[in-house]
């Protein structure tokens, strides 16, 4: 059996043996890289994003086509290719169509984990069966690919399970014991990686596989739900690195370029998310769950902690809305869980017809991933011009009559600005406490996703409207309609 990287050497450097077919496949590869680059670039603008995504998909198809022309699989190989493609493609198709928009973070994590697993399998396959005459570069590539691929795989699956609520944060992972465990696992993986070149198909490989897989679990498990988007984004970057490493293993420049691009893109996104949450990457990765430390620092975020709560009925809230000139909605993940985006859209249409200026304040990490809330509101046909980013809307709050907070909590906590002892201190928040009147729609006084008490609830201008977001919004709608809001203006 041949060594992939020797072939790779030909692929990379052979100038004088260019056949027509080689020219063709090289050309296809170049076009594919170009389209992938344009695709990623286009994804960063709203107008071009959808086309860019399709462009990237075409680029991917081209790359596969080019490779198939180049390697000309034998009939047996075709059979296995068809089986694998059919299973994976169909599963992807069904998953993509069935998944609700609210579950997007979990699904991205799942896809990402499978990408990592694919890189892991390739490296393990080569190590087991095709490493007899592999050189040191190939062996190092295999070790890196296994290490990164395994961490990506198990880390993503743990992230998905935590987001789904299948996994809690075990208590021992919040003690410093976890650092010892993770260091031990990292050492195990490192020993496997160092010994791998001596015996690629033996014990060292399994040490590396097991050590890295458990390390992926060990580093992801202690991280709290609020920080999970950062982790998914980082793991997304890892899956790019894993693909690039697999590119070194099988000697594919295209794979190296694409993997490197995704790795870099993932890093940038991770940085953006950390900035938005005022968390450093290091504290996300090694600091444990935010809520767990918050409970000790803040003295607990339980219901008992609140003393000056005002609550009100949907009728009172509707009356305030009817009088308002400027209304800002602050949607959070709770809104999406209650599937209330459509009711919210209807309410805002009604208010607009009444002459009220309506906008939506979007915190960078609203929902559970940056941009997640935008997607959820877009699903309800909210025009994206009405979605206003935090830095733009914050100066507007003092001249806002009514703010309605729907299922958001930590991102409107004024403690983040004023209380240095709060675990949220320093996180950029929506300054809704500056508005004249604030209604917080919430099911109960339970703590938010990060488990921290919210000082906003106790402010004099704040009133709590208890109930499911969808039920409250429908209540507001019927109240406003019975007051004749909207109809008069339409008739006039």
């Amino acid at each position, binding site marked *: 059996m041949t060594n992939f*990287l020797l072939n790779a050497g030909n692929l990379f450097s052979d100038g004088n043996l260019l056949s027509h077919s080689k020219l063709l496949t090289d050309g296809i590869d170049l076009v594919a890289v170009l389209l992938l680059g344009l695709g*990623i670039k286009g994804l960063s603008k*709203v107008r071009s994003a959808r086309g860019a995504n399709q462009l990237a998909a075409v680029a991917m198809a081209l790359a596969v086509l080019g490779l198939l022309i180049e390697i000309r699989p034998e009939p047996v190989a075709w059979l296995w290719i068809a089986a694998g493609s059919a299973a994976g493609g169909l599963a992807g198709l069904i998953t993509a169509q069935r998944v609700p928009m609210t579950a997007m973070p979990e699904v991205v994590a799942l896809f990402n984990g499978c990408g990592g697993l*694919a890189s892991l*399998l390739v490296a393990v396959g080569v190590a087991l069966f095709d490493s007899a005459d592999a050189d040191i570069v190939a062996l190092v590539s295999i070790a890196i690919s296994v290490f990164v691929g395994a961490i990506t795989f198990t880390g993503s699956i743990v992230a998905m399970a935590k987001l789904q609520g299948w996994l809690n944060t075990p208590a021992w992972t919040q003690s410093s014991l976890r650092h010892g465990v993770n260091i031990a696992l990292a050492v195990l993986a490192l020993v496997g990686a160092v010994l791998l070149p001596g015996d690629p198909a033996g014990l060292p490989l399994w040490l590396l596989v097991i050590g890295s897989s458990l390390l992926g679990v060990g580093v992801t498990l202690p991280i709290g739900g609020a920080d999970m988007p950062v982790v998914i984004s980082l793991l997304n970057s890892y899956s790019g690195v894993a693909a690039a490493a*697999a590119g070194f293993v099988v000697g594919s420049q295209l794979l190296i370029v694409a993997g490197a691009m995704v790795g870099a893109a*993932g890093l940038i996104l991770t940085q*953006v998310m950390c900035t938005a949450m005022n968390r450093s990457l290091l504290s996300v990765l090694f600091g444990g769950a935010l809520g767990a430390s918050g409970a000790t620092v803040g003295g607990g975020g339980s219901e008992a902690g609140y003393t000056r709560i005002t609550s009100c009925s949907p009728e009172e809230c509707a009356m305030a809305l009817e009088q308002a000139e400027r209304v800002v909605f602050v949607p959070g993940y709770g809104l999406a869980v209650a599937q209330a985006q459509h009711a919210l859209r209807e309410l805002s249409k009604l208010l607009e017809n009444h002459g009220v200026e309506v906008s939506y304040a979007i915190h960078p990490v609203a929902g559970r991933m940056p941009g997640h809330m935008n997607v959820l509101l877009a699903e309800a046909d909210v*025009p994206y011009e009405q979605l206003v980013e935090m830095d733009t809307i914050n100066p507007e709050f003092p001249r806002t009559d009514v703010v309605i907070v729907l299922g958001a909590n930590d991102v409107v906590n004024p403690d983040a600005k004023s209380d240095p002892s709060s675990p949220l201190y320093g996180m950029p928040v929506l300054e809704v406490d500056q508005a004249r009147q604030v209604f917080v729609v919430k099911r109960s006084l339970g703590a938010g996703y990060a488990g921290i008490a919210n000082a906003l609830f106790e402010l004099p201008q704040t009133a709590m409207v208890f109930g499911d977001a969808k039920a409250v919004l429908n209540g507001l709608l019927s109240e406003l309609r019975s007051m004749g809001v909207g109809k008069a203006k339409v008739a006039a």
Partner: protein
Amino acid sequence: MSGLSQALWVLLLGSLLGLELIGKVPPTLHTPLMSGANAISGITVLASLTLIQKAGDNQALLLIGALSLGFALFNVVGGFLVTDRMLAMFRRKGDS
């Protein structure tokens, strides 16, 4: 230039390109960009295909290759479709 150093150049330039390409992204697009980039990282399909081709008549390797191809394609197909579903929902005011 050796194959390795050329491959390392490709890695370096690819990384720099990635950093440049998505320097500025509106927050609206962070989630779709993440899932789009995630789909692209499924380009590991190329490695899986190569593995299947090189396997010859080694059944175990064929199986590993097909499994890895399946997982990678799940990532690619699912990733692109889900991204498309999200982006299809972005409409401007006045669009029908």
